[in-house]
């Protein structure tokens, strides 16, 4: 495996490399070189199985991370190829020509994250949602609880008490906090 990593280093600009387990490695590559490295890994290095393609939203850095999880049947090693793409205008090259089920993931990512894969078949068709009008729901800034409360009827009549506040109310109501010193969050 170390040998392969060295080889990849010679081929592309390897931004990061991490060994998670004996059978699981992660490499981070440039967006432009992704297709090349994937097809090399598939054709020459035996990583023929694409387990999944998924996205992670790193909203703080304004990046999506795409994870292409490959598997080599001979060595039994999973290799995650990571690539960071821009979150504001997310677009990535399609891999449906390398793997025939690639379009399926790309269609899902387009729906749930709003990442576009130009050229991928049926990528703009809806996958699991129907008539969705909000922002892509898997993005971090989409608040699912707020949406659910706004859209679906909650059964009313529930209320809870914080033991802290309740005990204060019952036992030491007049014991107010210090007058001058304030906490950060206030």
């Amino acid at each position, binding site marked *: 495996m170390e040998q392969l990593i060295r080889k990849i280093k010679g081929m592309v600009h390897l931004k990061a490399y991490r060994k998670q387990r004996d059978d699981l490695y992660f490499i981070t590559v440039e967006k432009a070189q992704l297709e090349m490295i994937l097809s090399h890994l598939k054709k020459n290095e035996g990583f023929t199985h694409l387990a999944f393609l998924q996205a992670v939203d790193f909203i703080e850095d304004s990046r999506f991370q795409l994870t292409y999880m490959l598997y080599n049947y001979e060595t039994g090693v999973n290799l995650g190829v990571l690539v960071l793409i821009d979150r504001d205008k997310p677009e990535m090259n399609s891999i449906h020509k390398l793997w025939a089920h690639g379009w399926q993931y790309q269609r899902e990512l387009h729906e749930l994250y709003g990442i576009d894969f130009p050229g991928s078949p049926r990528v703009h068709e809806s996958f699991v949602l129907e008539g969705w009008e909000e922002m892509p729901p898997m993005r971090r800034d989409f608040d699912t609880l707020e949406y659910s409360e706004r859209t679906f009827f909650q*059964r009313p*009549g*529930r*209320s*809870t*008490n*914080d*033991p*802290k506040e*309740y*005990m*204060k109310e*019952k*036992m*030491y109501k*007049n*014991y*107010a*906090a*210090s*007058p*001058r*010193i*304030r*906490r*950060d969050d206030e």
Partner: protein
Amino acid sequence: MKLKDVLSPLRVWERAAKKPMTIKDPINDRPGATNYRGFHKNDFSKCIGCGTCEEICQNAAIDLVPVEGQETVEGDSGLRPMIDYGRCCWCALCVDVCPTGALTMSNDYTWIADNPEDYRFVPGADKTKWQESEKGYTRSPDIQIIDYDRVDMQELEPEERDKSFIEIVKGYNKEQAIKEAERCLECGLCIATCPAHMDIPGYIAAIRDDDIDNALRILYETNPMPEICGRICTHKCETACALHNNGDPLAIRWLKRYIVDQVPADKYSEILGTDHLEDEVLNRKVAIIGAGPAGLSAAYYLAIMGYKTKVYEALPGPGGMARYGIPEYRLPYDQIDKDINYIRSLGVEIQFNTRVGTDITLEELHSSYDAVFAGTGLHLGRSTRVPGADNKRVYFATDLLREVTLGNEIDVAKNIVVIGGGNVAMDITRTLARLQNQKYGKVQILTTCLETEDIMPADVEEIVEAREEKAVIDPGWGPKEIEIRDGKVYGLHVVKCLSVFDENGRFSPKFDEDQKKFFKADMVVESIGQGMDLSYLSEGIKSDLKFSPRGRIEVDDSFQSSLQWLFVGGDIIQGPDVIHGIANGYIAAKGIDTYLNAE
């Protein structure tokens, strides 16, 4: 197509003669397994309403609601979980997490209703057919969702500590503190129990996030002496801790100590935002009698509210009982100074060696200050009044401890008996043991008290450590007589104590006169409680003040006495312990503020 393949399915005709699998009456024939996660039960005798079940429920199915008949008391919020079966997924995490083991599940699983609003109930309060069911899911003792085991505190070994007054407890390091802080359930039951109502979950969460500055700010909201409290507080909060029901309570005291130990003294005013306090001083003055925890706590809060305060202290050092009543191995003097120096840095002036009543009268204070706060503490020892107790080799523990702190030589005898079972008795026992060790190279000290070991008021760790330091503790005996031979103490006669309190909980010891014992000693120390010294009150003031039947000064909720300008707090009102003193000082300071602004 082979003939065999056509015929082979026919072979299973024999099944027609077999007994069918069908269950005749499924609803009644098949109760859930012993271990089944059915509907919830709650044992109200155990439930403390801590809300941990609500906290862990990923479906927001649990609400805490007040239930009739469940009172809010210390360590029990009086709230009980109400479960919404329109949310529950029967994962039983609430059962596994319940720190008391009150919440369990039955093996009942049928509940049919026409109205969806019915599926909300308080297990234990609402009548259900499964509340009495014996089978069902309970937490396996082999697993832990919350951590019941306290992070061990590193301490000096008995051999290292029994000769010197070096501090025993080493304190947590960062890793240990965060690990301990992670055990907190954030239920907040402890807040009500703490006399100062400190935001304990707040500062523990700050430790967890490694935000020491914020933690310090939270501490100083209601407690200006965290170094002292972090070491010697009676930590009543830990008895209320929800984890205490099934394991070790959270080490709240040590965590508090961890916070203050992390912050250097010169950073305090910056973190707490008190570096520009002088600009806002009001033109009002308050005098404080006694530089103990109560007095200094009042002084601190008055100072940050902008009052000019001056503290009058009879002894040459600040800290009151914290300094003169607690041995250095528990509370090193430099830590007391760290707290107090910060308070002094806010403009609080302390005048030492000035005893109010002799050096300056209370009337004089009244005339030159707008208000007076008295936190004079309990510095007088109390005697057993048994025959021989008036001998000069019979001492009070408070006096001896004060002498040790003042650095005066004590004539330590070779063989000592201590009477008393509280923390002060342990303090004097261990102090004298150290002095014996220094002087004679061996320890020969015995401590006895009325209470048997299980009800001894001293902290368990104190008793254990005293024994580790080779002191003998023999509880359950009542002192009968101190035998004097030739004017010298010869020993202590004791009889078996059968019970200390009567049925009403009043102090009324009963003895078995036939069981006797004799402890040989050439010095006896009495440590059975302390009394207050109110000699600084002149007759005129005494006649104006109201006293309770038991001789205490009567005060209202803000510790204002019947003389409006005089506020009284600390051990002479509540306690005795340091945290009550601090809390009293804090409330009194706010009371003084209200009183002065109402004029």
